[in-house]
């Protein structure tokens, strides 16, 4: 089996949360093999994060180049293809960066690609067996992949918990091998999200609404419930896509990270991107007409019901208190 690498995202000299999760996944994928962290970037911030992560990984490879100051996936891909040995196993986080980089990297390295891995079942010879999810998380699948000639694998965040192990590797400077980093896509800027009228990241109780609300006009019953409870209204992605509520009310990895005491998931199926925005172990109440909705796997209390009928009844009873 090829050498094992984890690509680590970082900003302002601090490694992404995925840094401590990818190494745990790597140890399951290639038991006993040393794991090397790969960093791309530029300057003092890069040196700082490389040194910090050398405590956790068996080795750290640093690729320093001004063209890599912002992690443009096309440029990072070129650097990795030039620096990594043929047949390497490369782990990436399955986030907006890993989705941008992973598929194309696998083609250029001529190795298989496995996306969004949520579990590792074991390795038999060169064949790896992993767990994935399909159909918006409604069912799981076992997937096999021959990784004897290398692979690119994207690992879902929050699944492999940091194990606290240390390794004490050294930082190796691989900048000289980066090669031609010219690109047909160039980074311009990051536009920060607009603030909304309600800051849901501060809310203690959230009534959160999803696709089950069916129609914009029906949102009224959600606001009435929130008012009765003294809660704020948040939502899942489809409600923002439909422009029914502002983006600042969206809970999820592409929206806000919230940490309420109580979270009422109303007609929300519970995709991992949505759940990724829910922190602090809130008490979760899920109401959904689909008993197979993934939200019921993580909720504390579940009710199989149509929210259009359930919410007004609940509001009425709370108002009577």
């Amino acid at each position, binding site marked *: 089996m090829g050498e094992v690498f984890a690509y680590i995202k970082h900003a302002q000299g601090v490694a992404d949360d995925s840094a401590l999760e990818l190494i745990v996944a790597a140890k399951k994928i290639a038991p006993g093999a040393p794991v090397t962290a790969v960093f791309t970037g530029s300057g003092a911030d890069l040196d700082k994060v490389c040194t910090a992560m050398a405590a956790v990984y068996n080795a750290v490879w640093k690729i320093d180049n001004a063209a890599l100051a912002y992690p443009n996936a096309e440029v990072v891909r070129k650097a990795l293809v030039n620096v990594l040995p043929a047949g390497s196993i490369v782990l990436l986080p399955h986030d907006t960066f890993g989705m941008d980089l992973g598929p194309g990297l696998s083609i250029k390295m001529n190795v298989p690609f496995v996306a969004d891995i949520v579990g590792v079942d074991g390795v038999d010879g060169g064949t790896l067996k992993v767990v994935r999810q399909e159909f918006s998380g409604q069912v799981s699948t076992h997937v096999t992949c021959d990784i004897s000639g290398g692979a690119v694998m994207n690992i879902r965040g929050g699944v492999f918990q940091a194990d606290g192990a240390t390794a004490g590797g050294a930082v190796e400077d691989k900048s000289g091998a980066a090669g031609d980093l010219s690109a047909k896509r160039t980074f311009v800027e990051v536009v920060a999200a607009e603030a909304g009228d309600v800051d849901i990241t501060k809310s203690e109780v959230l009534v959160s609404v999803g696709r089950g609300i069916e129609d914009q006009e029906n949102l009224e019953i959600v606001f009435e419930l929130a008012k009765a*409870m003294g809660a704020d209204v948040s939502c899942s992605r489809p409600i923002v896509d439909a422009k029914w509520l502002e983006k600042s009310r969206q809970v999820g990895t592409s929206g806000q990270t919230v940490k309420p005491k109580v979270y009422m998931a109303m007609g929300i199926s519970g995709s991992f991107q949505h759940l990724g925005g829910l922190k602090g172990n809130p008490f979760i109440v899920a109401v959904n007409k689909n008993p197979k909705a993934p939200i019921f796997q993580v909720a504390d209390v579940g009710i199989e019901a149509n929210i259009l009928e359930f919410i007004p009844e609940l509001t009425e009873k709370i108002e009577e208190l």
Partner: protein
Amino acid sequence: MEILVCVKRVPDTSENEIAINGDGNDIERDDLVYSVNEWDNYAVEEAIQIVDKVGGSVTVVTVGDSESEEVLRREMAMGANNGILLTDDAFEGSDGKGVATILKAAVEKGKYDLIFTGAQADGGSAEVGGMLAAMLDYPYASLVNLIEVGDGKLKVGREIEGGNQEINEIQTPCVLSIQTGINEPRYVGIRGIRKVASVEIPELGASDLGIDASSVGEASSKVKRVDYFVPDTGAGAEMLTGSSEEIIAKLIEYLKAKGGLK
């Protein structure tokens, strides 16, 4: 602008409960409601809006069997000008790389400035667009939620974590995977579907596309699905049952105890 949009016919997860069949090797496909992959509708709408502004044409393409023709017609009813069905027994069981290999051959049969895919589909891998771009040596941007057409290059916004947007300039031809919310896909009425019901949709197979049959399909797939299963997730939620009054009374007790009522 000549724009190719890659679309897929998928089980509609908002209309169906997905269950696993008796053998555990597939989902229960009887009585499933199928539709076009949600992300693909946004991609087609975006393509139509670009062509409305700067001219050109929109072609929709899919890899599938004869039943996949219906999603091409639906997207043509939205306003796509042409449809192409890539179909061959040799394509069955292709993994993401196999599908990208088939699409690459179709891209090379035409002359497109832009190629769109949905950001992801039912398998959740979000992989075909990036693979296709790398095979073609075209630049790629994923999760695109803004496109501004300029001279010889585009300005594209990518949705990144925390509701932020990453702005890039990208040369054409390029491949973009389109995120939901980039626009509001137009409604397709029964009249629109009727108008395109008799339009001929060309079908291309492996030999038409010059594809070596051994490079696609199940035998070439390095990534193989072994089975479907429902994970043992532990206790899961405590499901409240009974009459709606009983359920609500119980729920209110919980909310009081957990600080959910102020």
